[in-house]
């Protein structure tokens, strides 16, 4: 029984660490995503429609 309890406790700790780390790094990973964002931005100008990246 003792052994089992230990395992349960360890797994909870592991989960907590993972949870905390995810929250900590969430804003950073979001920034990284923004930096590599190449989704399209279309701009009409002089009878032409430019196909640009959002960051352009």
């Amino acid at each position, binding site marked *: 029984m003792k052994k089992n309890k230990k395992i349960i406790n360890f797994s909870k700790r592991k989960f907590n660490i993972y949870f905390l780390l995810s929250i900590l790094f969430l804003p950073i990973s979001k920034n990284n995503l923004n930096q590599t964002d190449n989704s399209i931005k279309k701009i009409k*100008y002089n009878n032409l*429609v430019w196909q640009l990246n959002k960051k352009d």
Partner: protein
Amino acid sequence: MILSTLDQIDTSNIPVVIVGSGPAAITMALELEKNNIESLIIEAGEEKYSNNSQQSYEGEIVGDKISALTHNRLRQFGGTSGHWGGWCKPLEHYNFTNWNINKEDLDKYSDKACEILAIKNQFRNVELNKYFEQIEFQYSMVRFAKKFKNKIEKSKYIKLILKTQVTHFEGNDNITRYAICYSKGKRYKIHSKYFILACGGIENSRILLWTKEKNVGFIDINLPIGKYWMCHPWMLGGVGVLKKNKFKKILKENYINYEGPIHIATTSNIREEENILGGALYMNAIEDTKIHKEIIKDFLCVAPELGKKIAKKIFKKDLKCGNIFLQTEEEPKINNQIKLHSNLQDSLGVPITKLFYFQSKSTVKNAKIILENFGNFCRKTDSGRIAIKEEIDSLKGYDSLGVNHHLGGTRMGDNSKTSVVDKNLKLHNNKNLYVLGSSNFVSGGYANPTYTIIQMSLRLSTEISKKLL
């Protein structure tokens, strides 16, 4: 031998009569000569075209605007090769989907075709991504009349008569007996075993339609002569700023190192996945500094930061900056067709051409999808940026830059209700009349047609030689 009059020879012993003297006709006669087979080439024009001779090509165009029929073909010895651009490339495998022959049937003749056109037998396609490939054209400088005049003059087997117009054919029991022609004001009936009609993508249909009218019952009335006419829509798709070094990095050792132009074509994947016909994008070899300035000015307005970086590179060889031209495949439509004019005739009384041509809505849709996907490729790989013409982007239409290739009208096929000639280019339900040229195309692909026409001529000459030897 170049004849001054048809009375000079006994034409009844010549086994092959070829109508027209363009690349298809000359290639055919030269190949027959190799097998010691005599042929008579009948050309309506003179050695050089004139305003008068070009007038015979006048026709009425009904529907959307395309280049005048007198502008993009030459009625002269050597035909339209007298002013062609020389762009050569075979059709792709997937272009033969609806043909009754396949690419291998024509590629057997590639070496010979390249020899005639004096080009390298090298047409590489290297994949840029799933949807696009860099492609390689070869550029022929051959003017057929200039290159082969001496050979024809000295030939024992080839007879050439100029200023002689074939108006129609006569025959019965499914056998073509005579080509009816006019030379120096005199009417001739030329008898032969085999007749090859090789007058180009308009005249082939016109002469067959007139034959059908003159000999009721001789030609199968159900044949769709003149129908499924096509061209290669040629348009300004937009502008672009491309970094050649990025393309080189993507393709590594496979990069096709053209000096100036960039040629990109669609792969079969984009055709299948987006349900479109193919096309090829082209940027000129010669850089135009005026266009450079305009594009960079616009680019600075729409993307100032990136524009500044690009502007610094403008005079570097790495940067390709200019118009993006697009040549697309066109869907064959039964109502785009050549008919005989009901009121107007040429000087010999043959009705002039009345061409019904309507741009297909699918062409502008294809153009938009091709350009958008190419734009995506450029953005995602940072190999450049492009801008699409607003009327194409909004699917309103496109401005045709001209129609230089006449395709279809006597298309190949097995079914005589939907095609005019069989896989050996013989008119359906006729024993000895063959039609040769771009009029036989079932689909046009994006490549210029002359190379394929030469391959077809070589294939037909093999067929005719087999019959005569």
